[in-house]
């Protein structure tokens, strides 16, 4: 009985430590996306560089591609931008931009200045497509497979670590 009195609080304490050790190291801003494993929502938008031309995810059917949500007003987009430019230079995977709640001229200027890694950028001026993709923190990046299914979502800028450890291996696996 005396041993129990010592052991029970110890077990409870160990449980709490384990609970907090997991809970406190998680990022509460990273909301699990309900999109993983689901078809990428359809849309048809004007292209940023050509208001006459449109882009739709249907156009990418049969390819593994990235949909990167960006805006010229978005500070963290600048952080990941060099990485995207480098990826496009090496032709790693086609990247489509979703220019989110931006002004057309601002977006075009931003790309002219910092380099344009996008095969094409869709122009989502009112952010409605962004809502359909559950975007809440630009930049966000979706990895979409040949069948048009979302396989991964990066919230916030793509870090070199996320690229090496998660995104590139996933793209390679999906392309295989």
């Amino acid at each position, binding site marked *: 009985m005396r041993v129990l009195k010592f052991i029970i609080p110890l077990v409870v304490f160990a449980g709490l430590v384990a609970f907090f050790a997991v809970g406190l190291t998680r990022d*509460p*801003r990273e*909301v*699990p*996306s*309900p999109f993983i494993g689901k078809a990428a929502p359809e849309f048809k938008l004007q292209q940023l560089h050509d208001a006459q031309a449109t882009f739709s995810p249907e156009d990418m059917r049969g390819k593994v591609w990235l949909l990167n949500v960006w805006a010229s007003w978005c500070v963290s987009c600048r952080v990941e931008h060099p990485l995207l430019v480098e990826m496009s230079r090496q032709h790693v995977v086609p990247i489509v931009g979703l220019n989110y*709640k931006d002004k057309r001229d601002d977006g075009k200027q931003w790309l002219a200045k910092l380099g344009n890694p996008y095969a094409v950028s869709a122009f989502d001026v*009112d*952010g*409605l497509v962004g*809502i*359909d*993709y*559950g975007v*809440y*923190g630009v930049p966000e990046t979706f990895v979409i497979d040949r069948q048009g299914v979302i396989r991964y979502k990066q919230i916030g800028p793509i870090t070199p670590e996320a690229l090496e450890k998660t995104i590139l291996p996933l793209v390679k696996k999906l392309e295989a």
Partner: protein
Amino acid sequence: MMRAVVVALLLAIAGAAFAQSSEIAKPDPAIERRMKGLAEELRCLVCQNQTIADSNAPLALDLRNQIRTQIAEGRTDRQIREYMTDRYGDFVLYRPPFKATTAILWVGPFAMVALGVVVFLFVVRRRRAEPAAATVPQERRAELEALLDESGRAEVARPKTD
């Protein structure tokens, strides 16, 4: 004259304040009421500890407008909530649904209370089972009483020394 100017000025200020408090041109009171009811139950993803009704984040504004549009289109509250969870997951709901993954959230507090009650009853019952006074052996009684007397006297004496 002066009074007229002041009244006109106050009216202008009130008008401006009123215009600012509503974010759309012609709010329909019925839609606004339903929208508020829904938005107060939804978490703003950008500023996670505010509701969509409270937040000034651009996304919250977009989502409020989205709710308005859908109400005007005749969608039910349930459909609108589904629209939100399809995009942002159960996390947007301030009242998450009861599921395997949220069971601990809903049941946990009640389980803790139940556990507390059980422990409490257990302790009380054990205390009642052991008679407190009878455990002091007769030969030590005198000793104890002497000690109690002494401390009693000390207690009385203390205020005087202060």
